[in-house]
């Protein structure tokens, strides 16, 4: 390299340099439109530093190539791709140091390839690496100083180093921002897919319909699904299925299989033959290695007969009226693996029992490293057995989602039950005193239709209203909130009981603080709990399964 006397050069003044630096830094830190910022920046750098040309090259393609993202000067280089180890710029990036080559003709690293392609004559080069926290992004290159000798000086080197640092930061920020935008776009599309998928599931049934399903997807899109629909003769066709794998592939196969079942199930009412047809269709054009396990069946509410066929799904559980469970075994392989298989049918009578069809997401959920398993699932069912089916499903999913339980897979449950309906109520009101009347009116209706006398209905209403008043005053303390009231008949008990649950989402209250006051202590509000205890057979405060708020369960024997 030649040495030059810096004082001979008409360089930009220090003030000009500092002004450029300040302006660039400002622009870099505020702009996320990196292309425009860099375009402006490179032009200003070229002008202020009296260079003939300037360009920014960034690493791409797993850092194997340097690509010109923007340039200024007589030759258009934008889009030019060089191997990452190419020439002086490659060296700058590799060694992560500023390179100043005063006479390229004497520099062994200089490769004339670009000049040959462009017809431009490179005499000297100043090149600074772009790095952020040790991550190499590329380099800024200035070519030929517009002076008589066309050479850069040490000052130029310092300025470019400073500019490169802030440019690198800006490029890095912009890249992260665009990655974020891409991530959000994907997220948005997954949410749309989930919405479409949720629409494939039947909407919630009326309380007195014999089939109820619930699905809790673990990702935006789920591989589980269920379906049911009523035929003109009153029989109900149903299925529950689990697609192998998760994510978008699984959910597309889910959509396809679900549509096939829904369409073919309207005319083919033999579950075995239906699964056979679905199997053949799925097999015909399914992606290799993907399959679907499914329980399909038909239920006749008039005779209580269920006919089931099982394609490789885990056995459904039938809980008989006396409480014992039976697994309904099936031996056929999943759908989509082999064509032309037969799916044997099982006939059973539901009577006053309940059939639970579910995916392994339920039994494989873990608590303290222990899987729930079939036995655990049965315990969970029994814990909520006296609830009407919709409340029971809700309570079971609250259990599954409570703190400390790990769900690894989509969780889906289909419940078939054809018991005589007992009156029940599920109501949510704002925690405000002016809603208490609504609560009382609804509670009175349920109590009366459950068989309570007018006097007992009055007592039930008073106890519920007092409990709700306490929630408003002492749990929410006047803050906004919700009060949920659930009432159902525990008809399997002899004599039957009315079970009343009040739930709030306020801070959990120390149960020891909830005491009725002494009777001579008649300060306002002191009587409520005393009333509740007098009126009800049983009163239990608990923390709800999901760990939030408070739950009060009150029981009273219906017109003892």
């Amino acid at each position, binding site marked *: 390299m030649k040495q030059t006397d810096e004082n001979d050069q008409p360089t930009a003044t220090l003030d000009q340099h500092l002004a450029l630096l300040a302006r660039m830094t400002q622009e870099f830190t505020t702009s996320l439109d990196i292309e425009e910022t860099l375009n402006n920046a490179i032009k200003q750098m070229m002008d202020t530093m009296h260079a003939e040309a300037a360009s920014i090259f960034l690493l791409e393609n797993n850092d194997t190539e340097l690509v010109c993202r923007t340039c200024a000067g007589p030759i258009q280089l934008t889009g030019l791709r060089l191997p990452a180890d190419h020439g002086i710029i490659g060296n700058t990036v590799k060694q992560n140091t500023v390179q100043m080559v005063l006479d390229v003709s004497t520099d062994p690293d200089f490769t004339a390839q670009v000049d040959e392609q462009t017809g431009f004559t490179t005499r000297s080069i100043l090149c600074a690496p772009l790095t952020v926290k040790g991550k190499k992004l590329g380099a800024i290159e200035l070519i030929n100083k517009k002076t008589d000798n066309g050479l850069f000086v040490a000052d130029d080197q310092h300025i470019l180093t400073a500019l490169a640092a802030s440019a690198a930061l800006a490029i890095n920020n912009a890249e992260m921002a665009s990655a974020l935008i891409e991530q959000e776009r994907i997220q948005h599309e997954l949410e749309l897919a989930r919405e479409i998928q949720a629409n494939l599931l039947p909407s919630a049934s009326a309380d007195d319909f014999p089939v109820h399903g619930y699905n809790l997807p673990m990702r935006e899109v789920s591989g589980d699904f269920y379906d049911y629909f009523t035929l003109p003769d009153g029989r109900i066709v149903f299925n529950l299925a689990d697609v192998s794998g998760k994510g978008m592939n699984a959910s597309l196969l889910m959509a396809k299989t679900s549509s096939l079942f829904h369409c073919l199930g309207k005319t083919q009412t033999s579950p075995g033959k239906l699964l056979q047809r679905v199997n053949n269709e799925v097999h015909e054009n399914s992606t290799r290695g993907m399959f679907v396990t499914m329980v399909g069946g038909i239920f006749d509410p008039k005779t209580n007969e269920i006919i089931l066929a099982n394609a490789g799904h885990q056995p459904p559980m039938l809980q008989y009226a006396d409480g014992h469970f039976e697994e309904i075994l099936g031996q056929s392989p999943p759908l989509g693996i082999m064509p032309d298989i037969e799916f044997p049918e099982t006939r059973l009578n539901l009577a006053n029992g309940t059939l639970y069809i579910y995916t392994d997401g339920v039994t494989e959920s873990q608590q303290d490293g222990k899987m729930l398993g079939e036995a655990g699932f049965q315990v969970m069912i029994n814990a909520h057995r006296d609830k009407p089916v919709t409340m029971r499903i809700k309570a079971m999913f609250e259990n599954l989602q409570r703190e400390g339980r790990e769900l690894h897979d989509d969780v889906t449950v289909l419940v078939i039950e054809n018991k005589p309906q007992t009156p029940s109520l599920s109501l949510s009101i704002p925690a405000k005193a002016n809603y208490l009347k609504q609560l009382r009116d609804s509670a009175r209706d349920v109590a009366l239709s459950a068989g309570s006398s007018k*006097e007992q209905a009055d007592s039930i209403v008073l106890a519920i209203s007092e409990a709700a008043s306490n929630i408003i005053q002492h749990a929410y303390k006047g803050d906004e909130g919700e009060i949920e009231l659930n009432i159902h008949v525990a008809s399997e008990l002899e004599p039957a009981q009315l079970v009343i649950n009040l739930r709030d989402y306020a801070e959990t209250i120390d149960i020891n603080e909830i005491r009725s006051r002494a009777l001579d202590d008649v300060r306002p509000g*002191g009587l*409520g709990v*005393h009333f509740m205890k007098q009126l009800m057979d049983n009163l239990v405060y608990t923390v709800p399964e999901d760990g939030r708020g408070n739950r009060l369960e009150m029981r009273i024997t219906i017109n003892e």
Partner: protein
Amino acid sequence: MNKNSESPVKFEIDDEQGYLVIRFEGEIDLYGTPHAREVILNCLKSERNTVIDLSAVNYIDSSGVASLVEGFQQAKNQQLEFGLINISDAVQNVLELAHLDKVFTIHASLDERIQAS
């Protein structure tokens, strides 16, 4: 006569035979109690013997009962008469539950109260 139809608990006040008679109507719960309480205490503030007609009250909760107790105690402090008349079954049951049916003086009507005194 005073009437207030905007309140959750409706009431009328009549001046009869030396008593202010407050006749409440509706449900005296957490929502209606603050208003009912104010009405009772205002009557006592005017240094008048007060009786409360509860024939048209079809629901009263612990907060409503507590406001009656407060009126009762306030009257005692001011050496005024305070009583309940014409109470509905719903109110009777709740007063019994609170063991307050023997604390208040309760009569079938204002006339009966005057005769009894």
